[in-house]
């Protein structure tokens, strides 16, 4: 199933706000906000996000793909998902 890239970004953004940014103003989080290097996600929250993506988009991460290069911003995450599901 093809997913619009914009839709993926919004899904990921909503998950991050609901899960890791309690009490945050949602406008603060942009598609380029650093997530791991900015202290928003630690190793456990990163795995929670990976788990969410695997279920939502129905593919499995290879062990080496769980990496800052693919996960440090909403843009990076969404592009990675799109490359996996052919969006």
């Amino acid at each position: 199933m093809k997913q619009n890239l914009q839709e993926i970004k919004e899904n990921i953004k909503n998950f991050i706000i609901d899960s890791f940014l309690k009490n945050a103003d949602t406008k603060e989080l942009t598609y380029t906000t650093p997530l791991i290097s900015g202290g928003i996600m630690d190793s456990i929250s990163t795995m929670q996000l990976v788990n969410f993506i695997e279920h939502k988009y129905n593919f499995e991460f290879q062990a080496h793909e769980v990496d800052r290069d693919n996960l440090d911003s909403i843009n990076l995450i969404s592009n990675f998902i799109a490359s996996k599901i052919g969006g």
Partner: protein
Amino acid sequence: MDNTTKLYQLLDLSAEKFPDAIALRFQNKQISYKDLKVASEKLHIQLSAITITSTDRVAIYANKSIDFVIAQFAILKSEAAYVPIDANAPIERNSYIINNCEVKALIIHKSFYESFKQNFTLVSELENDLLLLKSNKETLIKSPPDLAYILYTSGSTGKPKGVMYSHKAALEFINWSSATFAPTNIDCFSSHAPFHFDLSIFDLFVSIKHSAKLILIDDQTAKQPLLLAQLISEQKISIWYSTPTILNMLTTYGKLHKYNYETLRLVLFAGEVFPINQFLNLKHYWKKPTYYNLYGPTETNVCTHYKIPDEVKSLIAFPIGKCCEHYKSKILPSGELLIGGNGIMLNYWQPDEKNNQALIKDEQNTIWYKTGDLVEIDSANNFIFKGRIDRMVKRNGYRIELLEIEQALHQHPEIIENAVISGTNEENATIITAFVCCKSVDWESVIKMKEYCSKNLPVYMIPNNFIFIKSLPQTASNKIDYQQLKQLI
């Protein structure tokens, strides 16, 4: 039977007995016992050339690698003390530690060199991008006799404090581990904990004492369960030691069903409570190993142990068990656990008055450490952990003084006042919440706060939640009312 009095002798003996056996493996590199000894002796000569002796400290500021271990043994061979630095922590915190313990030399990765150019002189370039630097300071404090290493931990004054360990005390623990777990040269140990964390003492020195193989796990793999699950199986690890947080991450996210773990025979965990339901999930995948719950602050290393029975019948948290054979224990009327014996730290580095109260000498000259942990005894004579007497908390096995977080936030120019509290979530994980009063609403941003903390605190100290309030509630005696803050979350 055992004449070992210095930690480096453990390597010497293994190099003599099993020169060609693999001592360490890291990513695609490995080194034999003979080569590890030769490399550390070569570096030891360079340290001697800059007059490193038994009264000095030498810090190692690099990520985990074979060279890190070479440096540790070279420093020990010089009879100086090594100070392992957390290469992932903010550089300001690390500079504080390096200044605080007045190191005479620094073995540092090139990428961190810039910040130390002023106070250190470059002596030589070592292998794999490490540099040897010497302090420009002429007179330095002398170490107490027999000092082997200093591990820095979160301090109740808001600054990290150094826990000084002697060779003698470290060997007490290492020899206890030998007797309790009976490792052999066919064992393959994990080195999951970073070298600045006291769990590493077991990994490194017990494996080397028994001429076993030690698998060094790099910092990235260490916190990534998919890679970790693969590594434990592929490297055929037989003795695993980590915090429960890591074991739970492995079970929840590591896809353990994909791999074979038949070599795993012993799984040790320490540093925090392991909720039973999480333990049972792990045991579903790892049925064969013997499990131990180990307990002990950095100041004592492991001081109580509990072997998990084959069948876990109740859902009540595991006891921390009985006192280790090289220790004595007693409980104060307040419920606080005291540990006495030769295995405890020498003292804190440059202790203040409050630090000094942690150690007590009794009439028989036994030194006791006041753990600050409250315990009870169950019907089987095991200690049960009940909580803390102070504001120290554990998160992912790391101890955190909440004051250290408050002080870091206090340094922020836009923060008027702040208070930090901790609680637990439904999975029993520690959740840290910071209450912050800012000068202007522009700074009332969770993202800005987390970003600031990620630059000024180790990752494990970054609060989970930030709550912005106009002013902090106070008690009748004008102190921060932490109880009332707890009601606000």
